[in-house]
């Protein structure tokens, strides 16, 4: 709870400090708030204060583990984004404050104990994103992204609320543990209310994480939003949505596993194929990232389908590795700063800016799952847990990893290639210090983080 308050207040502070017209002050406040929030979250868990459990919120191990990486990713996104905020200094405070508010929502979504808090968290998470997606006001695509995300998102929220109402109708409770107990006690004799509610909640979740067939918003929104927002959506929003997904489906609805698992398996397969096959022909970087993220959602769904005590850790490890790759790549894209956001702009990067190119290659190969990078270990944990229960599902996931290597490799080759001689040479990109730090953190994590995951 302290963490929530600290982060929220630092968000508010940065909103008002923006009046001082000193962007670095805002950055300082936000970073300090994030670090303080992280520390308090950690100590709260470590010392087990008695106020760990609130009405509606509970910071258990799950929430703390996921919350810490959410805070870390937000910090990285803020640091990365700072230099691009500088183009519009008057908006620095708005951006950072909205990012922090959204993070507050994500933390709620990781720690809720009743459906009511869950819904609140989801809205707190989403509304700042609706705003930020459209923050690039000169670009019509940004407005389109914002509108599209808002319309579809609002619809999904509506479906979710309706689902929660059905669940309430079936179990007479909003509280997760009461719903869990109800489902276990009434084994096999549930009213159809629960099933309908479950399906509605499931479809809302699939929408939020961007899984097929509810994925259509994500390429457009990823593509239209400013880079930082895309990075934040890919890393933190997905994390929050997946955390809540796991809390509700692997714990609360675990008793109905036989009912939803087959459906979710089919959708996971569909998601992998849709993401991969659409990514093959993309020419814009953020669209590629969007489709690749759809595929990764497909892999991550395996952790929810598989019922095992390690599922939560596997999901955590997977999102951890995915987040670093995405944030690294987004940072590289911000550095390249191509108006059209073409993949082609990556050509010859490693010759212009060796380190930036190196991180781009690490990020791509990690997404592809090449050992010994972190992405490989994330995938490995997920697959090796799933193989005992769903060997065929893992086989399909492996085939998809094989398809995926094609478009990642194409980009890796582009990064490594020489520039064409007949075209004017792109000058060396300037890399601000903060982005350099982010790149270095991502590179270290991608190179050595994998070993930590399987300790």
């Amino acid at each position, binding site marked *: 709870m302290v963490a929530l308050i600290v982060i929220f207040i630092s968000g508010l502070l940065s909103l008002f400090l923006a009046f001082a017209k000193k962007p670095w002050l805002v950055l300082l406040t936000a970073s300090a708030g994030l670090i303080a929030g992280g520390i308090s979250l950690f100590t709260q868990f470590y010392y087990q204060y008695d106020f760990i459990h609130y009405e509606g919120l509970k910071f258990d191990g799950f929430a703390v583990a996921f919350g810490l990486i959410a805070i870390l990713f937000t910090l990285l996104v803020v640091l990365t984004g700072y230099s691009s905020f500088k183009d519009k200094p008057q908006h620095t405070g708005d951006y950072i404050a909205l990012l922090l508010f959204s993070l507050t929502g994500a933390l709620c979504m990781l720690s809720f104990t009743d459906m009511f808090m869950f819904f609140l968290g989801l809205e707190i998470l989403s509304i700042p994103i609706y705003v930020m997606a459209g923050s690039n006001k000169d670009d019509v695509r940004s407005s389109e992204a914002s509108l599209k995300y808002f319309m579809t998102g609002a619809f999904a929220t509506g479906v979710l609320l309706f689902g929660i109402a059905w669940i309430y109708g079936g179990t007479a409770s909003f509280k997760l543990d009461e719903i869990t107990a109800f489902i276990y006690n009434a084994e096999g004799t549930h009213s159809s209310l629960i099933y309908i509610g479950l399906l509605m909640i499931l479809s809302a979740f699939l929408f939020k994480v961007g899984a097929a067939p509810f994925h259509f918003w994500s390429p457009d929104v990823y593509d239209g939003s400013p880079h930082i927002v895309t990075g934040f959506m890919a890393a933190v929003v997905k994390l929050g949505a997946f955390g809540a997904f796991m809390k509700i489906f692997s714990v609360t609805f675990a008793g109905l596993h036989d009912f939803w698992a087959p459906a979710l398996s089919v959708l996971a397969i569909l998601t992998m194929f849709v993401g991969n096959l659409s990514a093959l022909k993309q020419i814009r970087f953020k669209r590629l990232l969007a489709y690749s993220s759809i595929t990764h959602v497909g892999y991550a769904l395996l952790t929810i389908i598989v019922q095992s005590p390690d599922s939560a850790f596997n999901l955590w490890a997977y999102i951890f590795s995915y987040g670093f790759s995405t944030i690294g790549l987004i940072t590289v894209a911000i550095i390249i700063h191509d108006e059209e956001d073409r993949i082609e702009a990556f050509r010859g990067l490693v010759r212009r800016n060796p380190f930036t190119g190196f991180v781009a290659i690490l990020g791509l190969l990690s997404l592809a799952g*090449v*050992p*010994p990078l972190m992405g*490989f270990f994330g995938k*490995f*944990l997920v*697959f*090796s*847990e799933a*193989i*005992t229960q769903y*060997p065929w599902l*893992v*086989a399909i996931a*492996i*085939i998809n*990893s*094989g398809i995926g*290597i*094609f478009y990642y*490799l*194409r980009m890796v*080759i582009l990064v*490594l*290639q020489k520039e064409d001689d007949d075209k004017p040479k792109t000058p060396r990109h300037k890399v601000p210090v903060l982005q350099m730090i982010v790149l270095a953190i991502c590179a270290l994590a991608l190179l050595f983080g994998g070993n930590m995951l*399987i*300790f």
Partner: protein
Amino acid sequence: MELLIIPSLFALAALVIPRNFMRYFGLAGGVTSAVVAIVHAVYYAPTTKYVSLFDPNWTSTFGLSYKMGYDGISLIMVVLTNVITLLILLSNFNKELASNKMFTAMVFFMQVALLGVFTSMDGLLFYIFWEITLIPVFLIALWFGAPGRKQALIKFFIYTFVGSLAMLLALMAIKTGICGNLPAASFAVEDLMAVQLSACSACWIFGGFLFAFAVKIPLFPFHTWQPDTYTNSPMAGTMLLSALMLKMALYGMIRWMIPLAPESLESYKLPIIILGTIGVVYAAILAIKQNDIKRTFAFASISHVGLIAAGIVLLNVDSTMGVFVQMINHSLVAVGLFLAVDIIESRTGIRNMSELGGIAKQAPKFAFWFGVVALASISVPLTSGFIGEFLLVRGVYSYNWIIGLVIGSTLVYGAVYTLRAYQLSMYGPSKNFNFPDLTWNEWLVFFILMVLIVILGVYPQLVIDFVQPSVTRLFENIHSSKILVQ
């Protein structure tokens, strides 16, 4: 541990060494690591069971045991790797490439990864090193290769990556338990071997490994990446691919595929031998029809390894000895042939055999040494090729005489395509090239190759005595830890 650390240090140092010293530095690194490997080999008594290089005596919660070490089988591959790397560096010595820091670093990086593959005694570690080897060879081919390399390289990378994923699936299946097996305690080789597999899971696990190795060897229907990749890589890349990476797969079959799932060896034996035989004949015919001299030798390589793959699955000590002699011979011959191809290509700019000819008159030394390597490739008696192919063909013949006859025709085909390539390029009317003869480093490479080839051809016992105890022990382990259905 110094086996791996020395090349890693050289790889890192290569990034900061000034350009002028780069090629001497590369050579020094090659010599150092080769000497270290040979010292290891000298101090290794063949009856020793196992020498540990690194063993933290600890397993991560996930089962990665980090064990590294070698027995005779691994050590011979380690020595081979280091000697071949030295030869590769030496044969590039007078080229511009040798002064490139990325090239030198990548060769050493490749060496580290290969040594890791050969000394890993842990399944996951083996997989990780196996995948890492892809990166340096890919980069060497991408940065320094021929113009048409991009498509070929994408094909190569995807093909081998998908193959390796199948291996990963098999490793995960055997570790975590599938089809009702008990899970293994860790990824260490002895723990994985101790798992008793049911018929269904053994079949899948064997198949997963086989797919990975068949792509890399390459066995007949999975070979389509190979000619393009070989032709489009620079000389060093081709040598690394054919002389070393391919051996990884053969080594993997002996060390991992058969010991981990011997239950289904019987059902896979005939298909593998038949695929190998088809590969031998099919690739030989294609090699005869080629006009491009590098492509000819690329297909020749497929043709030779088909026989080796067939020899491995026979699972008897004699043909396994043949496998080892032939693996070493194949590496030496590959280095020699591709060096010769590169000498021709870099001096005339032509690889098309119908436009070549008469080189022997201008460069008699080159013609002689190329001839020596070509003869070794044909497996003339007194060269190592003869011993290896003899043992292998004999093994296949005693398994099934019809297949033995067909696979034995490799000796005839080999003579046809090698001599054809040799004759078309070396003899005939001179085409007025300015063809300078061998430089000292090229001569030295050929000389070392010849010495090794003849020594192995006259006294193959050198290798056989070295490997045999380990192989016998491995087979005993296979029989004792698993109940084989004969």
